[in-house]
């Protein structure tokens, strides 16, 4: 029966899937762009550069669909638990897949899911899969990669000129430089990433060459050790209340909020604050997994003194930028040490976990005396622990975590997802994070950027009402029991979202979206001595058409608009209209992408964001604020199979100002031109 089905699919399925299944790099970049853009379109201020990099690495090391585990599939966050379950069930029932075209036979795998999945998988018979690590096969089939990138802005910024004050003057040159080396095989990854931001010095006086280094060694499947990480690494456990270094996806990725890759992962990221540095390992024995880690990292911040006595750290700096003398005064002024672990036990349909860590600072931290900050972490020591669970029962998935910190403050989150049929799914989530709960390395589901001071209920649905149509919607109602930055009372709000995608042909997609957010914030009126808290509503609309008029050409037309309305002011509007064109030459290994965008968002509250194609490993979602136009051209040239050149030219022209930026970043003029070049060599 299965052979008949396969034959039918093979005979008629070629019209459905891309003709070249072993996708070229350019094609998988396009798919990754679509995945990330889908996330960005829903949650424009979510930071996804880590996710983008993870997807690139997964595409470079695809999974064998016949041998991959549930845990590996969960890394592909666009797959729902139902789809993962169905894929595993299909493999269990019918044996190995013979071709990727067979994915169409699996219940719940719609066209978009298969298109998204293709760059990350391949099909090979399971018995051909090699086993365990040895010194020989650790290095066998490995790939080396060297990557060099440099960026610059053509216009001179104030920080590099004599107009800059001492506090604004940049010590280094205006070139951004990044270098990465990586060796990776199935079981072993060794690498180092280093960078110097624009304005940072490349010398031995302020820095040791580059400003930031991220070395790592990551070994998988060595005897009882599931993972060993040395150097930089990331930790994600449970629902992220205690430990989550990876960025969280937006609310519209409904099912990724219930499942997320857990455990240790390597960190080649150049984020200078979100990483652990030291040693971490996971030991697996049957259904038990034990993870232990130790990390010691430097911290940037401001030290406060009382006469000559050190009081401690008054603020922690996390932007990783060291351009001025003042930045170097704040660099590496303290060290943080973290030691902890996680224990997980896997029952057939249930996973239980315990996570905990102890955190020490070598200098005491004291928070701001502002009322909204009184619950922030203070002192030198801190510890927290949590219990998490995840269970499957028929079409139900439940997951949750309960955490308690050293001071007895609690945080809890519970999720239920239900997908009775492949065309309908529902997710409900409740969270309550006490204002007193401190979460230094946590990143739980929340409306705000921190995992504390929030209570809320989220409900979302995904529906495929007709063939070629997909609807995603959610409603999130939340409250903040204590004050927040720029909100001087406890406050509440909601966010509603609906998104429709229509794919009439495999080359054309229509996409429209509406999002409404209502919150409160301070407003200072002229006649009042103190600010009053005023509600506001922001409505956002997006419309996009994605089409491939012919084989090598890709066009995208997009329109974003928003309205910002409060009781005290007239509504203000923001508008962005853009056209993208991408062309892949057939005779030469050259790919071009270009965008022309016109934007009109005079008020900062109406600022808009739109994802744009960038060079490899660079994630770009520029903010459109003001009135003007933006043009960019992205070029990918692959003269040899091992060598790829990337270049980007971006020019922004403002009609409403004669000065761009502030402080040392000020450009005197109304135009900004950025150039970026990257060379990627694989051998």
């Amino acid at each position, binding site marked *: 029966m299965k052979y008949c089905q396969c034959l039918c699919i093979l005979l008629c399925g070629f019209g459905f899937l891309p003709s070249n299944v072993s996708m070229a790099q350019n094609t998988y970049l396009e798919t990754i762009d679509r995945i990330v853009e889908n996330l960005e379109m829903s949650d424009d201020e979510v930071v996804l550069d880590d996710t983008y990099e993870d997807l690139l690495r997964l595409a470079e090391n695809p999974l064998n669909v016949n041998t991959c585990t549930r845990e590996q599939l969960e890394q592909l966050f666009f797959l729902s638990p139902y789809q993962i379950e169905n894929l595993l069930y299909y493999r269990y029932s019918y044996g190995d897949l013979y071709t990727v075209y067979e994915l169409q036979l699996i219940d719940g795998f719609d066209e978009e899911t298969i298109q998204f999945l293709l760059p990350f998988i391949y099909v090979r018979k399971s018995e051909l899969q090699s086993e365990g690590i040895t010194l020989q096969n650790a290095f066998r089939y490995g790939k080396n990669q060297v990557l060099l990138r440099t960026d610059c802005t053509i216009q001179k910024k104030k920080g590099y000129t004599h107009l800059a004050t001492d506090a604004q003057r940049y010590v280094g040159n205006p070139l951004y430089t990044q270098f990465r080396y990586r060796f990776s095989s199935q079981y072993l990854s060794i690498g180092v990433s280093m960078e110097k931001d624009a304005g940072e010095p490349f010398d031995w006086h302020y820095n040791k060459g580059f400003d930031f280094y991220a070395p790592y060694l990551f070994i998988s499947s060595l005897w009882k050790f599931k993972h060993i990480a040395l150097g930089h690494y990331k930790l994600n456990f449970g629902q992220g209340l205690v430990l989550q270094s990876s960025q969280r996806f937006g609310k519209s990725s409904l099912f990724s909020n219930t499942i997320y890759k857990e455990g240790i992962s390597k960190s080649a990221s150049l984020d200078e604050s979100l990483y652990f540095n030291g040693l971490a390992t996971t030991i697996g024995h049957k259904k038990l997994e034990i993870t232990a880690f130790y990390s010691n990292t430097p911290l940037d911040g401001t030290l406060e003194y009382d006469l000559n006595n050190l009081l401690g750290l008054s603020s922690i700096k996390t932007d990783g930028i060291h351009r001025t003398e003042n930045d170097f005064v704040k660099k590496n002024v303290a060290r943080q040490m973290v030691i902890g672990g996680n224990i997980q036990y896997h029952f057939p349909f249930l996973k239980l976990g315990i996570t905990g860590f102890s955190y020490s600072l070598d200098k005491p931290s004291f928070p701001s005396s502002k009322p909204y900050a009184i619950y922030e972490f203070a002192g030198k020591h801190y510890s927290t622990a949590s219990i998490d669970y995840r269970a499957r029962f028929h079409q139900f998935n439940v997951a949750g975590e309960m955490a308690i910190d050293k001071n007895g403050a609690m945080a809890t989150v519970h999720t239920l997802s239900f997908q009775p049929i492949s065309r309908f799914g529902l997710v409900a989530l409740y969270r309550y994070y006490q204002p007193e709960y401190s979460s230094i390395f946590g990143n739980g589901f929340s409306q705000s950027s921190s995992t504390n001071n929030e209570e809320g209920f989220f409900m979302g649905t995904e529906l495929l009402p007709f063939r070629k149509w997909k609807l995603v919607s959610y409603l999130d109602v939340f409250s903040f029991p204590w004050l927040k930055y720029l909100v001087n009372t406890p406050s509440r709000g909601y966010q509603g979202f609906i998104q429709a995608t229509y794919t*009439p042909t495999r080359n054309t997609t229509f996409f429209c979206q509406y999002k409404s957010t209502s919150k409160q914030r301070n407003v200072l009126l002229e006649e009042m001595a103190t600010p009053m808290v005023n509600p506001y509503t922001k409505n956002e609309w997006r419309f996009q058409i994605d089409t491939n*008029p012919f084989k090598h*050409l890709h066009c995208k*037309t997009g329109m974003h608009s928003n309205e910002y309305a409060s009781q005290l002011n007239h509504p203000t509007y923001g508008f962005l*209209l853009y056209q993208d064109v991408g062309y892949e030459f057939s005779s030469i290994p050259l790919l071009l992408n270009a965008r*022309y965008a*016109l934007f009109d968002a005079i008020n900062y509250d109406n600022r808009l964001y739109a994802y744009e194609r960038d060079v490899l490993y660079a994630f770009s979602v520029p903010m459109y604020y003001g*009135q003007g136009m933006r043009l960019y051209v992205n070029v990918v040239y692959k003269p040899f199979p091992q060598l790829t050149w990337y270049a980007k030219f971006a020019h922004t022209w403002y009609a409403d100002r004669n000065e761009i930026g502030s402080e040392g970043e000020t450009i005197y003029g109304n135009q900004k031109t950025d150039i970026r070049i990257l060379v990627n060599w694989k051998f």
Partner: protein
Amino acid sequence: MLFKRYVFCVFFLLSVFPIHASVMQQIENPRSLALGKSYVMLLDNNYALANQASASFLSSSTLALSYHNRFVVKELSSISARYSMPTPWMNVGFLYRFFGFSLYHEMIAGVSVAKALSSHFSLGAQVDYVSVYVSPEEGYLSAFVPQLGIIIKATPSVNLGIHAYNFTFANLQTSYQEEYLQPYLTAGLDYHMDQKVLLLAQIHKPLREESTLSAGIEYTIAPEVIVRTGMSLQQYLQPSFGVGLNIDVLQFDVGFQYHPVLGMSVSSGVVFIFGK
């Protein structure tokens, strides 16, 4: 005197800057006016002011003449002409437009090219020489202005059009200030419900003005007779309607649009199709 005041008021309402009065408002052919100013996705639009990419679908040479009048004020009239010629490589067009009266007038002379790169995608480009007579003191101000248009057949029944005007931000330099010729970007869709009914929707965004939403319906009663209606919404909702007649090698179009404050605008035109 009263009449002059009226003309002044109309100019003032049209735009804060007098030289924006017409150069900014270029889409004024009779077919588009009847469709609520929807123009960007029309495939067979032969008039002077259109998406350049539409010319790539022409198989014969055409000459289109049109007259446009705003709000029944003689001084707010323009005439335009376009000659389009298919060649083996691409379609080439030449156009001319004149707007205004003795104290203020504008002239545009342009050349355009259009090519269908596939049966689903066509590209058009145009360069205009814009010359504006502002005042006896300032004399003529001029600039070269580029335009780019794309039409995509996204599905068998849906066409998508995009048109960018003055993306290089060409401007007219007066002695007292620099005036940008308002750049704009327009995008729109049409949907062929069947052979007789065409639905259109468009968004037009000039950089420093509010966007205009347009929608229209074109219904082919008989091969010779087409009726059109539509509306555009910026500050006011402006309904519009019009008729088209196809008689052998001639195509006549007339369109009307009503502005609730300023009144009626009318546009009429004729297209000669050579060698049909």
